[in-house]
């Protein structure tokens, strides 16, 4: 169906590894007097400097930085937001570039940094992302004086990620994509509405169990605890009650993103130079597959993910059975199922049962989104993908404490999605 043009990836000119990661709490800054008034420079600077500390380097060691923010003009009133934060983490004067791929920004932020090092141009590159998804600037006052970005205003701004030639005018593309993955899956594998509902509810419960053990996550309570507080002994009964209403054809409130403020960053260098900076093992970026599909096209997420995933498997020779942990940008929670099956991490047509059985939670045998993903960790739009990269690296080092997965992951698969829409399939592996 409207097949997309395909690309063959070629090996990097030199291998590149992640040597440092940093991430701020994902939060609604205005809701807490201690965080109300945080600015772009502070959030980005914090995540960037945390990544440098983690890598054991100083700002002078970094050659260049990439800056990602999904909606800088509206939320920050900046057109060149890399410049406006550039003095905040000790890199005054170094070169930088800004990019936005909306909700896919944080995944493609890794792509940018890896390409810059693989080309040979730079040795040490920082890539960071920041978003104020809940606290936007006033426009007439200094950047610490912010106001709430409410759901309706946010929804209104979302239209700018859709084509204004046909897609907005035909009125369907921006509205079908919440449900396209679920409808496609139900029809292909013969699931009932109720089976899909149960699957997506369990997904939310599983993700939340990991998020509450992550101090950076916006969610602080499990669904079991929330159910009890509202007088339900049975969490499923609560999840199907009016407390968790159907918001789209298939998604309940528990299957939608928790938009918020946050920042995350990473440092990459040539794999052969890792030991010059850090005693920790580098996390090698084996490859990144890319595809796009405009929102008027059918099955954007499915077809785009298939192509990006085909590219990265073909390049790396990695087999799906080698994947130990998976992250899917799940602002619509269905993405966990769609991405995991296309990646071959869960068996085709059977993956939904893994969610119902709890096997995809952080303590299951097929962990997905151990930080809670967009519906429990939170969605600071550009920063989310980088927060997933942070989490994958921490899991691969065994540094996740109470939410550490059972078997130390050696190979991770991350599926970026966003911006009506970019798709990216990333494979990371602990360097030997």
């Amino acid at each position, binding site marked *: 169906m409207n097949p997309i043009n395909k690309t063959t990836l070629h090996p990097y000119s030199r291998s590149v590894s992640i040597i440092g990661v940093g991430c701020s709490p994902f939060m609604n800054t205005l809701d807490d007097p201690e965080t109300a008034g945080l600015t772009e420079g502070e959030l980005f600077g914090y995540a960037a400097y945390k990544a440098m500390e983690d890598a054991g380097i100083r700002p002078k060691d970094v050659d260049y930085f990439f800056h990602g923010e999904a909606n800088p003009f509206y939320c920050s009133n900046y057109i060149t937001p890399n410049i406006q934060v550039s003095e905040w983490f000790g890199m005054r004067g170094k070169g930088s570039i800004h990019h936005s791929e909306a909700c896919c920004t944080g995944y493609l932020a890794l792509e940018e940094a890896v390409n810059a090092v693989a080309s040979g141009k730079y040795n040490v590159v920082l890539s960071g992302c920041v978003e104020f998804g809940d606290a936007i600037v006033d426009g007439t006052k200094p950047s610490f004086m912010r106001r709430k970005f409410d759901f309706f205003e946010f929804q209104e701004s979302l239209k700018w990620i859709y084509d204004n030639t046909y897609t907005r005018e035909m009125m*369907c593309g921006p509205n079908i994509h919440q449900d396209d993955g679920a409808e496609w899956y139900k029809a292909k594998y013969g699931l009932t509405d109720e089976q899909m509902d149960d699957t997506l509810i369990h997904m939310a419960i599983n993700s939340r169990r990991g998020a509450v053990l992550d101090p950076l996550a916006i969610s602080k309570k499990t669904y079991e605890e929330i159910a009890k507080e509202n007088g339900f002994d049975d969490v499923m009964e609560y999840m199907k009650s009016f407390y968790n209403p159907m918001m789209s054809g298939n998604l309940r409130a528990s299957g939608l993103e928790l938009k918020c403020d946050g920042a995350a960053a990473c440092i990459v260098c040539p794999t052969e130079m890792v030991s010059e900076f850090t005693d920790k093992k580098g996390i090698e970026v084996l490859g990144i597959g890319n595809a796009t599909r405009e929102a008027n096209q059918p099955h954007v997420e499915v077809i785009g993910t298939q192509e990006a995933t085909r590219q990265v498997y073909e390049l790396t020779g990695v087999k799906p059975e080698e994947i130990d942990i998976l992250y899917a940008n799940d602002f619509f929670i269905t993405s966990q199922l769609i991405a995991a099956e296309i990646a071959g991490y869960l068996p085709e047509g059977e993956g939904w049962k893994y969610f119902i059985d709890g096997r995809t939670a952080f303590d299951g045998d097929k962990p997905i989104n151990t930080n809670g993903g967009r519906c429990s960790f939170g969605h600071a739009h550009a920063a989310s993908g980088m927060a997933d990269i942070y989490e994958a690296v921490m899991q691969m080092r065994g540094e996740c404490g109470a939410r550490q997965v059972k078997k130390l992951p050696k190979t991770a698969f991350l599926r970026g999605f966003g911006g009506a829409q970019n798709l990216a399939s990333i494979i990371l592996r602990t360097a030997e």
Partner: protein
Amino acid sequence: MGVKLERVVKTYYDNLEAGKITGRKCLECGAVEWPPVLVCNTCGCADMEWIEMSGKGKLLQFVMPATITKKDEMKDIKPYVFGVVEVEEGPAVNAMVRGINKKNREEILAKLPVDVHMTIIPRDGYSTVIFDLDEE
């Protein structure tokens, strides 16, 4: 031949005002682009000719509108669903489809794919295309 700087979009919308739904057909491989674009996405050739669409299509999948997907500005076309439609000339699109409601949802789901046809509807200062279920 080769690529020409032309107003594809304005031509498409002007044609809609005249009651004609048009697409562009590749002179090299014969693939049709609808809605029309500058260059063929199938073979990459820039030599395209305007054609009038038959207006026929098949609805392959659909979902009902709900809290976050129904919009005030679409009230006038109720009842509608969000559909995946493959048109007779080949291209497929996400498109609005009228004629399905809560009552007949199950029946239509069981019958997919079902025949639909294009309808031009007025919006605020321009026209666009949606689909209606064919009469039984």
